[in-house]
């Protein structure tokens, strides 16, 4: 089992407020890790710290068993909670730009754009400006931008929010496929039915990881019927 990404004793404070306290996690290659937690629990902050976009006050992050470095970012696919797209540009131009930033050559880019557009069902809308996209279309384009360079490690912050059940289904199918290709995924969510599709979940609450494990194991150890109940139990502890 190769560890692709790990965070050790991560602690983060904004002013007085402690956002994360002593968070540990590690992701092995070929697994889908679901980061679950209520709004404001620190999921986005954790993902950003793992990426190096946010500094942590204590602890360290290892990316592919090394200190994070620019060259290792080539194998990263990041999708932020906000869509982070260039609205004046067409979807094609957005993909083309992120593709070249990720080091894809022109021919390769062209081919990959077709492929990822197919995957997120945006093939017929590639020439539209992002300005004219709906919320869900932007979300899918944002995901496509994270896929374009076939990274080994995906950090996806609420990738399916605002999508209809059918699309959500097909995106989770995609995640399974990526996983079969040995990719590692960390996906934040607060949708419970998505949790069961993860290999492992981490329950984040008030900046602490309450529990980690496969969904089935968690249900067993905590003697509950649904993952939500663990959060409730966690409070009473």
């Amino acid at each position, binding site marked *: 089992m190769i560890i692709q990404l790990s965070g050790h004793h991560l602690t983060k404070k904004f002013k007085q407020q402690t956002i994360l306290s002593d968070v540990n996690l590690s992701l092995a290659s070929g697994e889908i890790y679901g980061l679950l937690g209520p709004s404001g629990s620190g999921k986005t902050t954790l993902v950003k710290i793992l990426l190096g*976009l946010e500094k942590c006050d204590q602890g360290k992050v290892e990316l592919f068993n090394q200190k994070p470095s620019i060259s290792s970012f080539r194998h990263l696919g990041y999708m932020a909670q906000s869509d982070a*797209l260039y609205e004046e540009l067409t979807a094609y131009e957005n993909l083309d730009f992120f593709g*070249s930033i990720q*080091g894809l050559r022109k021919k390769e880019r062209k081919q990959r754009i077709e492929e990822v557009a197919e995957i997120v069902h945006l093939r017929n809308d590639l020439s539209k400006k992002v300005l004219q996209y709906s919320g869900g279309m932007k979300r899918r384009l944002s995901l496509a*931008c994270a896929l374009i360079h076939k990274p080994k490690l995906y950090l996806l912050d609420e990738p399916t929010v605002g999508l209809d059940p059918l699309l959500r289904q097909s995106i989770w199918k995609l995640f399974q496929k990526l996983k079969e290709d040995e990719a590692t995924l960390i996906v934040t969510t607060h949708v419970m039915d998505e949790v069961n599709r993860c290999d492992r979940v981490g329950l984040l609450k008030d900046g602490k990881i309450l529990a980690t494990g496969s969904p089935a194991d968690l249900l067993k150890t905590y003697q509950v019927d649904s993952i939500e109940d663990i959060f409730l139990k966690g409070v009473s502890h």
Partner: protein
Amino acid sequence: MQNILALTNRISRQFIRDKRTLALLIVAPILILTLVWVVFGAKTDEPKLAVVGDSKLPMVKQFTLQDIKSLNLKQAKSELKNQEIDAYIEIKEPLSVHLEGSDPPTNQRALKKIQDTLGQAQNQGQQKLSIHYLYGNKDMKMFDSFGPVLLGLFVFFFIFLLSGVSFLRERTTGTLDRLMASPIKNIEIILGYLSGFGLFAMIQSIILTFYSIYVLQMNIEGSIFYVLLTIFILSLSALTLGMLLSTFARNELQIVQFIPIVIVPQIFFSGLFKLDNLPLWGQIIGKFTPLYYAADALKDIMIRGAQFSDWWGDLALLLGFSLLFIILHMVTLRSYRKA
């Protein structure tokens, strides 16, 4: 390199799509320059004059040679009353000038024209009148003296605003995060912006310079190429400063708030108003503003026709400013991304 090109390409595309911003970059300065020109420096009509006297007199001839019409006293009086002429001179002893008198500048111009003509007449046959001007010439207008500074100011202002807002957007929309999570180097981001925006800065410089010189007839003694070079180097400093300061702003309005702090002092201390009249502290502040050096170089080139050796130091300092802003920006970006 591919990264820089990708950024350049993307920025130009965004720019071309945003027609209004493109217009702001070029049309707004043209509009303002033209307004200032209209107010301070439009080539005014020649004063309309007439001469009254015996047409055989050499002095009268001197006036008619200048295309000043010769009238009899009655005609002259009525034309003056009807504002068909601004003034007439009666050739008699003593010479008397009758001005229409309602518009002081016109009076002055009419008087000047008459005096000039008389001067030539009196010196006829002796040595030719030679009038020397230190800078500029007989046609030098107020606009010519501060036009170069204004040109620099507008370029600086608009490029600063645009680059600041664009880089800020990159941050607020989250695309900067995406860039930071990809294998692009910080310096490549900055260079990409420089070349993407530099392209438009160059176009702006060319259009504004040509407009000022050929349409507004701004005085130009030196080479137009040097003017372009100066303006372009100035715009680089505006670009880098805008990007740097955008990291201290949370939204567009906060970029606008930099205007009174960053732009307005430059207007006062960069040579638009006579620097000698400023208190010492004002003169010192001026020395810390990019516009000061650009204005100095532009005045050297456009008004004094100075040589390269006289103003290259100004350009070097301007490039120094850009370099400083880039380095500071690198430092702030580094604190943003750890790797």
